[in-house]
């Protein structure tokens, strides 16, 4: 005999099929949506954005799955946009010789790469490869430009965060350059 709960779940069958179809075809799984929200919330580029604002980005974000060792993009190809690791791991590497490559970074869930391609179409400065079966979220320039056109306030918020991030990196690079320069000067004095 069916329990009360099971009976409720089984009848009417037609409704359940329709509901499942509606959920699968027309609506995104709410748990998946929630996990994307929690991932994006942690990314500095979406800092200070409300849930409806992040949902606007969710509408233009592409979900992609990559198998282990599958290349996401190659060095030298025109850049189209940035990726955020949702699940799995990514390696960023640069070709140093014909068959040699140097690993620049390893990225895991919540980390992002390729954000400079949101600004221009210049060639990718490094390649990205999936180290294991990986899910990533892609945000691309055409969609971002379209969002800026339609929702300038939200677009500005994002661009401001992007500018802050690039500024931070520039500051960090300047500091490193200064350290290296002083080391170089010191070595000149010693020799």
């Amino acid at each position: 005999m069916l329990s009360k709960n099971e009976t409720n779940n089984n009848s009417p069958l037609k409704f359940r099929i329709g509901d499942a179809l509606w959920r699968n075809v027309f609506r995104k799984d709410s748990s998946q949506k929630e996990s994307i929200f929690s991932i994006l919330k942690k990314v500095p580029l979406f800092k200070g954005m409300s849930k409806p604002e992040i949902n606007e980005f969710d509408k233009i974000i592409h979900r992609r799955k990559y198998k282990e060792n599958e290349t996401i993009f190659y060095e030298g190809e025109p850049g189209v946009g940035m990726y955020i690791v949702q699940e799995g791991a990514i390696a960023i590497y640069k070709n140093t010789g014909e068959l040699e490559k140097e690993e620049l970074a390893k990225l895991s869930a919540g980390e992002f790469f390729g954000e400079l391609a949101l600004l221009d179409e210049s060639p990718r400065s490094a390649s990205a490869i999936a180290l294991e079966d990986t899910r990533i979220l892609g945000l691309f320039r055409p969609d971002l430009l379209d969002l800026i056109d339609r929702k300038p306030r939200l677009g500005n918020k994002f661009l401001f965060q992007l500018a802050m991030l690039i500024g931070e990196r520039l500051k960090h690079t300047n500091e490193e350059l200064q350290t290296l320069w002083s080391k170089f000067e010191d070595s000149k004095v010693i020799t």
Partner: protein
Amino acid sequence: MTSPITSLTVNYTPKAVKKIAIWAGALLLFVALLIILPPLKSVMSSLVIALFVTMLLNPVVDFFENRGIDRLLAVVLVLMVIVFLMVLGVKFFAPVVSHEIEQMSAGLQNQSPEEMTLKFQERLGKAVPLLRNPLIQAKTKEQLDALLQKSLSLIVQLFSAVMDMVMLGFITFFFLKDGRRMKKAVVRWVPNRYFEMALIILHKTERQLGKYLRGQLLVAIIVGAMSVAALYLLHIRYYFFIGTMAGLANMIPYFGPVVGAVPAMIIALMDYGSFGPVTAVAVAFASIQLFENIFISPFIVSRSVELHPLTVIIVILIGGQLLDIFGMLLAVPVASILKVSVKELYWGFKNYRIFA
């Protein structure tokens, strides 16, 4: 002894089998499309037209969204404004056009096509004595009869096209509202290796084509208005109807201006019976074309989708064969989509090292 078949056996790896299956599937899909598409000609043309209308209206919807209005509301608003403008147009211009059409149909009812042809031949014979030759007259009559029959069937086609308008509005509504989601769903099926390339090609094609179509429409409106004004000043009957049609036909390169000018010239000849007004109409249309080619098109229509004149003529002929007048109207924009897509695909294959 081993059989020759065994020696021919190829070791199929799962990857190779998968590849063969994909190619076989693609081939089957292509054959299925070839079988399915011809009967779905009208649905396909509705979809293509809705796509073009969406490209024309999208910037307007985006403009409202930019002002903080919800997209759904913006789409409803834009479509309502268009319906309102159409109603307004019907209210103000319909009396003029319907009067013209009534006159035309009354003319058709009073006289059979044969009578009209005879009358026209008589006028033509008076104006050009050479055309009184019975052999030439018989040939002209044959051609004119065919032309008249064609123009009658064209009117029927136009009416059925009006019936399709509601359907078109419905499809356009969903394209405008959910176009972005639809595009995302399509791109989702593209394999990872081609994904970025597909995305950028789709975006560039859409942008260039949208610009081209909006430019073409603006040029058509300007040429239409100028034609109506010129015909009105020259006292040509049905000036509004013929002028509007000339504006629309202007979207068909090379053939369009001729299609627009010829009816006006025939009416001028039938009404006045001399070549003076016909020449005036021809000069007016030629001036409008000259003005359009020198001052309007270079500044409005995007040059990126320019096609070779021979290509234009061939695609218009193919379009005409497939979908009659609508095919001729759609031929150049569809060929432009193909040209821009091929150009961008070439760019993509070169830059994304697909075959490397």
